């Protein structure tokens, strides 16, 4: 065992948990009329601290703790930093946009932080039961957050749909875990990898893999497991969607990478074609459906399905290049998607009086800053060079081409051409002169506060950095990929895994 105290291996999770508990306790002890907004700052500070703790973990030797259930490696640190960054931006965004008098504000911040605990743990867990627990922690927080606007009909509807379908998917995952345990007698991922290699065609292992894939693909909202996405995104408050559409997905993709490349590299020939199909379906279904949407949040929901497809294209890549591309895409997608939801929150407001594409007409004239940012993030989602979206797609598809999946890349890039149509529809609506028909849209000039300004700045800087100087982030992603390819030494001897 490594001499590093186990607690250091889960330091970010510990900090986040303490922050969440503190926020809840303070919330409970404050007088009812007392403003809860400072709690948001507490949560943001805790998240920042957790982010630093993740970076600090870089100085630790790679290794596992708590009887080989969690691991610290370049891979986990990459996703920890990403998730903490997303959560930080989402918190900053919520600080300025949640109405001052809204109920349960303290709980809102606590839930966001607890969700982050689950997501972080999910990326670090190397033991399937811990994986399951982490997934549940993150899911339960997000179910509640999705229904945060319970005054409207849509909020509870969103929460209920998300909860029912989500539990169903989690059940699949759990069933898959049970099958694998039945076949191998262990839930430790390295062990499973070793045993699965010995008996690659064990029926239970194959069934377990398939069931786990269903559970995970549901979480990343890949077609055909995507039907919940538009309704949930439409019903949940925009800052929550900023979080929902990025952080849990990043965590779930981390899990998918772990399952595919670390647990079952020996079954590459099974899962690679499956994910090929899912990738093509997700892109095509997502984009075709998004073309028809008039509601901005639904449109972006379908766009996120399509982006899940672009990311899955990276799984056609061989080993390191595929993992690195997928990790990079998760980061690029998070930066631009959080950014665009921040803009949408500001434009349409917490109560979302302006949900339709047509309502964005004249935004550039009303508020050049927000209009410009909207167009900027849309341009990145389209995948124009010098933005993060471009390099995300670029790495993903070049990994696919490198792995021999030229058709996947062609379908993907044609899809991104198709996608340009609806992104542009929104951008052009913003650039069009205001209509007289919608006076409400004409008068609303959103204000940009300090917290939201910081959130937007972070998102813009991240998108630009990933688009112009992606070298550092890519190197981090590749370092992570290497650690996933060559698992750490644990107490039980584990063979280094040769690539199939």
């Amino acid at each position: 065992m490594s001499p590093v105290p186990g607690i250091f291996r889960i330091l970010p999770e510990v900090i986040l948990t303490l922050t969440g508990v503190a926020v809840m306790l303070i919330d409970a002890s404050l007088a009812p009329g007392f403003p809860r907004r400072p709690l948001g700052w507490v949560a943001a500070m805790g998240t920042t601290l957790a982010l630093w703790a993740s970076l600090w973990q870089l100085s630790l030797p790679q290794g596992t703790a708590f009887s080989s259930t969690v691991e610290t490696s370049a891979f986990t640190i990459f996703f920890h930093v990403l998730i903490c960054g997303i959560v930080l931006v989402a918190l900053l965004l919520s600080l300025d946009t949640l109405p001052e008098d809204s109920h349960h504000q303290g709980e809102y911040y606590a839930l966001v932080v607890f969700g982050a605990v689950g997501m972080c743990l999910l990326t670090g867990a190397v033991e399937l039961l811990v994986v399951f627990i982490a997934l549940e922690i993150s899911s339960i927080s997000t179910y509640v957050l999705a229904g945060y606007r319970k005054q409207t009909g849509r909020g509870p509807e969103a929460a209920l749909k998300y909860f029912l379908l989500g539990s169903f998917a989690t059940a699949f995952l759990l069933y898959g875990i049970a099958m694998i345990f039945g076949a191998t007698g262990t839930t430790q991922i390295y062990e499973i990898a070793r045993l699965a290699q010995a008996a690659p065609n064990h029926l239970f292992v194959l069934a377990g893999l398939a069931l786990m894939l269903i559970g995970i693909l549901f979480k990343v909202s890949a077609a055909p497991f995507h039907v919940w996405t538009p309704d949930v995104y439409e019903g949940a408050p925009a800052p929550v969607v900023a979080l929902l559409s990025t952080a849990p997905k990043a965590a779930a993709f981390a899990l998918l990478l772990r399952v595919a490349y670390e647990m079952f590299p020996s079954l590459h020939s099974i899962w690679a074609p499956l994910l090929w199909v899912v990738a093509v379906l997700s892109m095509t279904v997502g984009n075709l459906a998004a073309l028809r949407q008039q509601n901005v949040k639904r449109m972006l929901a379908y766009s996120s399905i399509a982006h899940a497809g672009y990311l899955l294209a990276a799984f056609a890549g061989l080993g390191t290049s595929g993992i690195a591309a997928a990790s990079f895409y998760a980061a690029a997608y998070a930066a631009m998607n959080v950014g665009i939801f921040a803009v949408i929150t500001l434009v349409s407001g917490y109560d979302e009086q302006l949900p339709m594409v047509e309502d964005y007409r004249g935004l550039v004239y009303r508020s050049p800053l927000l209009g410009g940012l909207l167009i900027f993030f849309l341009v990145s989602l389209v995948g124009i060079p010098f933005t993060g979206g471009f390099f995300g797609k670029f790495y993903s598809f070049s990994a696919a081409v490198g792995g021999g999946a030229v058709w996947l890349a062609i379908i993907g890039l044609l899809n991104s051409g198709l996608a340009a149509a609806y992104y542009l529809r929104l951008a052009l609506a913003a650039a069009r002169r205001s209509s007289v028909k919608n006076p409400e849209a004409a008068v609303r000039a959103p204000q940009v506060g300090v917290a939201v300004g910081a959130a937007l700045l972070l998102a813009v800087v991240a998108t630009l950095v990933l688009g112009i100087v992606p070298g550092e982030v890519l190197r981090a992603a590749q370092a992570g990929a290497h650690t996933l390819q060559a698992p750490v030494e644990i107490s039980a001897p584990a063979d280094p895994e040769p690539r199939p």
Partner: protein
Amino acid sequence: MNTIDNSILTLILLTPLAGAALTALAPERGKLPNWIALLTSVLTFGLTLHLPAHFVLGQSGFQFAINQPWIENPAIFYHVGVDGLSLWLVVLTGLLAPVGVLASWNAIRERRKIFFALFLIQQTAMFGVFISLDLMLYYGFWELSLVPMAILIAMYGRKDGPRAALKFFLFTFIPSAPLLVAILWLYALTGSFDLVTLQILIAHGSFPAGPLYWASFAFLLAFAVKVPVFPLHGWLADTFSEAPVALAMVVAGKLGLYSMLRFHVGLFPAQARALAPYMVAFAVIGILYGACMALVQRDFWRLLAFAALSHLSLIVLGIYGLTFTGSAGAIYQILNHGVVDGALFVLLGVLYDRYATSEIGAYGGLAGKLPRTATLFVITSLAMMGLPLLNNFVGEFLILSSTFSGVSRGWTVAASMGVILGAAYMLMLVQRIFYGPQSEMATAKPAIDLRVSGLAVLWPLAVLMLVMGVAPSLWLPAIEQGVRSVQGKDAVVLPVFVGPQSALFASPEGEGQR
């Protein structure tokens, strides 16, 4: 001098970008954005003039080159440089920038900051396309050039900007998907995006033939839409009638045509030869189709669009004739087209500004009221028709004569018909706008002739048309050198162009018919 030579191209790229940032940050007070944009573009033009001044003729390869690693993995390099092919195109882009700014001086009345900032970003993107020697860098600028263009068409369109912008964007964006796949495929096989490296590898036949053919086709498709070549020209007329003058004059032609020469003929010579007969056919159809469509247009922007289609197709003919002279003529004709079309756009923009209609029928008899505009318009139209002594003649002559002797007499005769039709529609346009009885509108509205800023733009362009017509030897040596490097040994080398003077007095078929 050496440091300047090393960094001049970077400076050319960064100056408009800095100007754009300055425009965006400066307060929107009066014409401040206009002045910043004008100064930036004049400065940039000055910088581009450094290139021909210090270009070493007879030195093969790329000059003023920089090759710095940009991204480690995949290996993308900041590799820029110019040769004879791109040299004058960079200068032309620099020249048209102040022209565009002055043409927008009064035409853009609101949101000047956004307009000029995006206009300058567009400049950077175009320079980038012309000087990039790394395929990814090139692709980056190629895509980047779409964004400001689409936004500006949407925001400043005349009637239905957003629709035209969407059409333009999708038409040009979707074909660039196969282009990117092809680039990635080349990279997957070689580990390099470098143009020169890939050129050598392809020449040595280190690729499977079938996929390479498809890769070259993907390249060609993206370029053909951008030019546009005949069946892919659907976006052109709408874009021309909606786009602000300053952008319409750069939207078509040079980026795509240059890319064809450099990245299709230059990169895939064998495949280009296989595709050339089809391209020649499409080009000739485009020449005739564009000219016939131009004859019947009632809107002068659309007329200009189809005229452009016809003229650009002639250049495509020059490129895919794959003869030495034809390619040199094609580059020369890109320059001519830039100058002449630019001037024509400015003039029609002036008319549109004064009378707010592009309906040709509403005009008539303006020559008496706007004598300066009429004079310049006639000169430009004559240049456009290819009148000897003016610039288009030289380019058309080079292309047609090389096609005649190097490709096919039949196609040449057909293409020459387009030149005749060209004279017809231009003369009809001039006649219907400026001569004949004064129309109701012309009498009713006050006549405001060109003022200083307009004259300051148009006279130099007119002089340039004449100089380029009588002294092409100022430009051609560098161009020929560039063409020689592109075509290498594979080209069907014809006797080198004998010299402009003798060409003027020669009377080849096609030209003689006028």
